[in-house]
C-alpha cells in the first residue's frame, strides 16, 4: 500500500529544490563564479561542454551542501580573484587545468549560493540551475567561434574584460571581508 503522505513529502522535497534554485539565482557571486569559469575554459565540443556543465553542477551541489561549515566569505572572493585574473591574462584552459578551474568555480558557486540549512534537495536545486546556466554559456561560447572576424576581436577582448572585472570584484570583496574582520 502506498504511503498516504507521499504526495505531501514529494511536494515538500520539490519546494526545497526550488528554494535552492532561487537562492543561487539571487546570488550574484554564484552567477559570477559560473560566468568566469565558462569564459576561462577553452571551447572544444558540445559533448565536452555538457560533461563540463554536469561536473560543475555536481561540484556546486557538494559545495552548496557544505557551505555553512566553511569560511565562504573569504573563499568565494579569493576564488573569483584567481579565476578572474587567469582569464584576464588571456588563458583558455583545457585538460586537467580545465578540471581544476571547474572544481574551483563549482565550489565557489556552491558556497556563494548562501544556503543556510544545506538540505540535499536545496543543494541539488542550486546545482541544477548552475549546471543549466554553465551548459548554456559553454554552448553559446562554442557558437561564437563562427562569428565574423570583426566581432571575433570583441569576443576575445570581452573574455579578458569579463575576467578582469570579476577578478577586480573578488579583490574588492576580499578587501571588504578583511576590513570587516579587522573592524
Amino acid at each position, binding site marked *: 500500500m502506498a504511503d498516504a503522505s507521499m504526495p505531501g513529502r514529494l511536494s515538500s522535497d520539490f519546494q526545497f529544490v526550488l528554494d535552492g534554485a532561487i537562492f543561487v539565482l*539571487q546570488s*550574484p*557571486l554564484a*552567477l*559570477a563564479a559560473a560566468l568566469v569559469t565558462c569564459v576561462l575554459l577553452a571551447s572544444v565540443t558540445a559533448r565536452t561542454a555538457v560533461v563540463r556543465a554536469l561536473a560543475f553542477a555536481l561540484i556546486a551541489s557538494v559545495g552548496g551542501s557544505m557551505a555553512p561549515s566553511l569560511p565562504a566569505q573569504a573563499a568565494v572572493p579569493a576564488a573569483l580573484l584567481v579565476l578572474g585574473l587567469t582569464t*584576464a591574462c*588571456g588563458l583558455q584552459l583545457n585538460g586537467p587545468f580545465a578540471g581544476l578551474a571547474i572544481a574551483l568555480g563549482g565550489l565557489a558557486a556552491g558556497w556563494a549560493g548562501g544556503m543556510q540549512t544545506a538540505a540535499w534537495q536545496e543543494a541539488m536545486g542550486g546545482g541544477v540551475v548552475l549546471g543549466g546556466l554553465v551548459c548554456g554559456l559553454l554552448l553559446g561560447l562554442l557558437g561564437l567561434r563562427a562569428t565574423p572576424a*570583426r*566581432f571575433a*576581436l*570583441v569576443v*576575445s*577582448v*570581452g573574455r*579578458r*574584460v*569579463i*575576467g*578582469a*572585472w*570579476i*577578478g*577586480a*570584484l573578488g*579583490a*574588492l*570583496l576580499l*578587501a*571588504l571581508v578583511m*576590513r570587516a574582520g579587522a573592524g
Partner: protein
Amino acid sequence: MSASVRRLAPALLLLVAPPVLAHTETALAGGFASGFLHPLAGGDHLLAMVAVGIWGAVLGAPLVWLLPVTFPLLMVMGAMAALAGLGLPAVEPGIALSVVVLGCAIAAFWRAGPPAALLVVAGFGFLHGYAHGAELPAAAAPAAYACGFVLASGMLHVAGIALGTVRAVPRGAAVLRVVGGAIAVAGAWMLLGRPGWA
C-alpha cells in the same frame, strides 16, 4: 470596453504596480540593482567607461585588451584606498577631467604608446574606484552592489570596444572622432559644474 482592452488591462496594471520583493539582499537600496544602475545613471562614469573601450579599439592590440583590463584593477586599488580612509582632493573634478582627456584622445586619434596609455587609464581608473569605494560602505549589500556595478561597467567597456570597431567601415574613423569630440565636450561641461543643469 473592448475585449482586447479587457485582456490588456491586467498587464497594464502590472506596469504601474510597485514591486513586492521578499528577499532583502537584492531588494534594498544599495543592492545588485542599485550597483548595476549606478554606472548607467551617472554620466561621468558611463562616458569614461565607454571611452576607455573606444580608445582601446582605436589603439589596437595589445592596448585594446590592456586598457579595459587595467582600468578595473586600478579601480579596485582606488576603492581600497577610499576604504582605508586615504584622503584624496578634487575627486569629482578629476573624474570629469578623465572624460575630457579620454574624449580628446579619441577625437585626436592619439596613438599613445603603451606606457602613456596605461598611465592615463590607470590614473583615471584609480580616481573612479576611489569615488565608488567611498560609496560602498554605505551600501546595504556591498557584495551585491559591487557585482551589479562590475557587470554594468564591464558591459560598458565591451560596448565601447564594439563601437570602436566602427573604425573599420568607410567613414568609421570620422564617426569615432565626432563621438570622441562629443564625449570631451560633455566632460568639459561636467568639469565646469554642469551649467544650465537644474
